């Protein structure tokens, strides 16, 4: 597992995604889009009616977050990841449309892992509950769709050196499984 921090410039092309491996700690710079449950539901419903996504999905990265409102003079409020598994229902479709990167926390389903493998994407984990720290890496924030959804509206963010860990890479490796297994192995060896 790499200990070094690697800087990544978005968008996340399939070629770039292929260079990322489970356990890599990376710093993301570039444009990402926020979307949670309600936004995913509306986007996919709209697609059925022929209404396009509010952003270009090609090589896009979606951040599962509902930030707190920005105080006057600030770009955004606290902005840590929400539980990604709730988006599993829609994520494979988003990935098939071109959105390769996802930032969240928590387990993903087998169908999401399959889609990450098939389309060469990546699931990044950000530290859940570290919203005050993560917000410091968000330099611009612009509401682009679904304002009525409040914290669940879609925002375009510009992030600089946004710290994440590769959880699921395009070979389908899952750090939630390996990280824990590796720790337990080390721990049990120490005990003996």
């Amino acid at each position, binding site marked *: 597992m790499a200990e070094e921090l690697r800087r990544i410039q978005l968008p996340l092309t399939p070629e770039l995604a292929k260079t990322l491996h489970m356990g890599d700690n990376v710093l993301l710079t570039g444009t990402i889009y926020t979307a949670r449950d309600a936004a995913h539901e509306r986007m996919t419903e709209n697609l059925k009616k022929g209404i396009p996504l509010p952003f270009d999905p090609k090589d896009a990265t979606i951040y599962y977050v509902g930030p707190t409102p920005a105080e006057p003079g600030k770009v955004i409020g606290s902005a840590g990841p929400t539980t990604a598994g709730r988006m599993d229902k829609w994520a494979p479709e988003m990935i098939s449309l071109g959105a390769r990167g996802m930032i969240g926390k928590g387990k993903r389903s087998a169908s999401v892992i399959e889609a990450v493998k098939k389309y060469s994407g990546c699931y990044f984990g950000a530290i859940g509950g570290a919203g005050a720290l993560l917000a410091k890496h968000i330099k611009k924030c612009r509401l682009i769709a679904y304002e009525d959804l409040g914290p669940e509206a879609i925002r375009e963010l510009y992030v600089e050196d946004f710290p994440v860990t590769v959880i699921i890479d395009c070979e389908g490796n899952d750090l939630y499984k390996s*990280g824990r297994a590796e720790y337990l192995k080390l721990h049990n060896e120490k005990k003996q």
Partner: protein
Amino acid sequence: MRDIDVSVITDEIEKMCMHANRHLPKDMQEGIKACRACEDGPIACTILDQIIDNFQTADKEEVPICQDTGMACIFLEVGQEVHFTGGALYDAINEGVRRGYTKGYLRKSVEADPIRRGNTGDNTPAMITVDIVPGDKVKITVAPKGFGSENMSALRMFKPSAGLQGIKDFILETVENAGPNPCPPIVVGVGIGGNFDHVALAAKKALLRPVDSHNPDPFYAALEDEMLEKINELGIGPQGLGGKTTAIGVNIETLPTHIAGMPCAVNISCHVTRHETEVI
């Protein structure tokens, strides 16, 4: 009788909602630091450092610790000699939540209807629990609760034959199922006994206790220690990436129950377990 104008309650709750979301309680701060000192997983140490950095940043800069500023869980212990004046108590509580979440730039996370959805826009209604106690004071506890962890909680109606082992297995199973989702390191609130509704409330109230406190009954205090040790042997670790620190604490609350049952509720909370109390 002591008259208390409900506007006093509103003002207090407004302040407490803002404060609780920005300043992690001391027991949690100390608990997380103690876990960091004992942690032996390399990834885990880095994550715990960032978690500590995060709550210290929130504290210093007066910003929300986490973007999920939760549903406002409000607990009132009202002395039976108190007479509220100037309006309805529940309206006053909700007004305090409304103002605190609006003025404090906290996230409005409440949907008006569970199926048809629709954000209420001001984080009301609060989840209110009122207990009547002797005396003429009002004790207010504000505990904003995020749903990443709430969603991983569970309740099971055990039969007495399941015994203590059944309860132990259920607590471990619930933590195992939760895995990385509730932002570990977690706090585990356990309710045992009562009936279907009261056991859930007991589990929630267990989370209001300081994380380093123990059940006054030595039997349950020992069970708290045992379960904490077992949970931390699972290896889930901070953020579920492996480590010793899966839980910071386990708090158990119990209630008498029916001859035919042994309900158990496990309310999972995260490293941003917020609670603060004021007495009026």
